[in-house]
């Protein structure tokens, strides 16, 4: 395995993004548990989050809007990173996030409105663990999914 094919990224960037994502997902859960109007608002927020995950999963986290916020506002206030990280692990995590919130979107459209709160909640757990504990989905589930034949490549 080599990092030579891909430029390294500041590992604090994706965790900063995960922190914003987890706050937005928690708000989505709250909205998704309310009345019809509130749930619709939660659904719209989940659509926005899905779009953001899609950007990260296709263009990579360094082209994600959060990465620009991080570079402009946060990184100038921090010391230089002690090490750079491979951008592929957070890209994989974005794809998993997209998959999970998409289930909530599909369930809502199919008439099960609690799908928004339930799958926003599931995505929240992963995003929060990433932000707060440096939990890495690529480390934990990628190989298992690959062994099961669910995914073929990164």
């Amino acid at each position: 395995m080599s990092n030579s094919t891909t430029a390294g990224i500041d590992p604090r960037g994706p965790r900063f993004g995960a922190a914003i994502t987890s706050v937005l997902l928690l708000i989505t859960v709250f909205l998704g548990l309310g009345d019809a109007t509130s749930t619709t608002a939660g659904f719209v927020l989940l659509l926005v989050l899905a779009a953001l995950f899609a950007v990260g999963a296709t263009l990579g986290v360094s082209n994600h809007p959060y990465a620009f916020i991080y570079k402009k506002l946060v990184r100038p206030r921090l010391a230089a990173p002690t090490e750079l990280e491979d951008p592929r692990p957070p890209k994989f995590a974005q794809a998993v996030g997209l998959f999970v919130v998409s289930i909530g979107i599909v369930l809502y459209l199919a008439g099960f409105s609690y799908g928004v709160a339930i799958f926003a909640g599931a995505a929240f757990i992963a995003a929060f663990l990433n932000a707060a504990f440096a939990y890495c989905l690529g480390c934990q589930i990628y190989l298992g999914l690959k062994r099961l034949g669910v995914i073929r490549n990164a």
Partner: protein
Amino acid sequence: MTWQLRIELVAALLVFATLAGLVWKARTGRAHRVRSGEQVDLLKLEAIKGGKPVTKFGRRATALQFSTEVCSQCRQTARLLGELENKHNDFLHLEVDVTNRLDLAAHFKVLQTPTTLLLDSNGRVKARIGGAPKPQVLQEELRKLEIKNV
């Protein structure tokens, strides 16, 4: 659903995620003894180090690290084990990318990465560490494999 119940459910989710994180943090990177572990077959492993196939184990101990391409903690673990290897002549660090070696992942029952097997001088598996190894854990395990002054 009332406002109060909604807030309670959101708070419960936050508490649950925090507890899950604490449990994960406490359990990851710990060493588990392996009783009568197998002898690793270097030919089957096809490990490459410095551009050359690896034909010998470390004189006293070898850390065999399984990684994938989408594993950020694998990089940190490789760096940590590499530093230990530089300090100790008797210790060898091997890293095998199992992204496209699912046969090895199945054989060694690797589900998460990094997973590190600690081998004795004969290449026999003595301990297994799931997740990024904690530095103190590594020191203790290497002492057991007679790597001095860790």
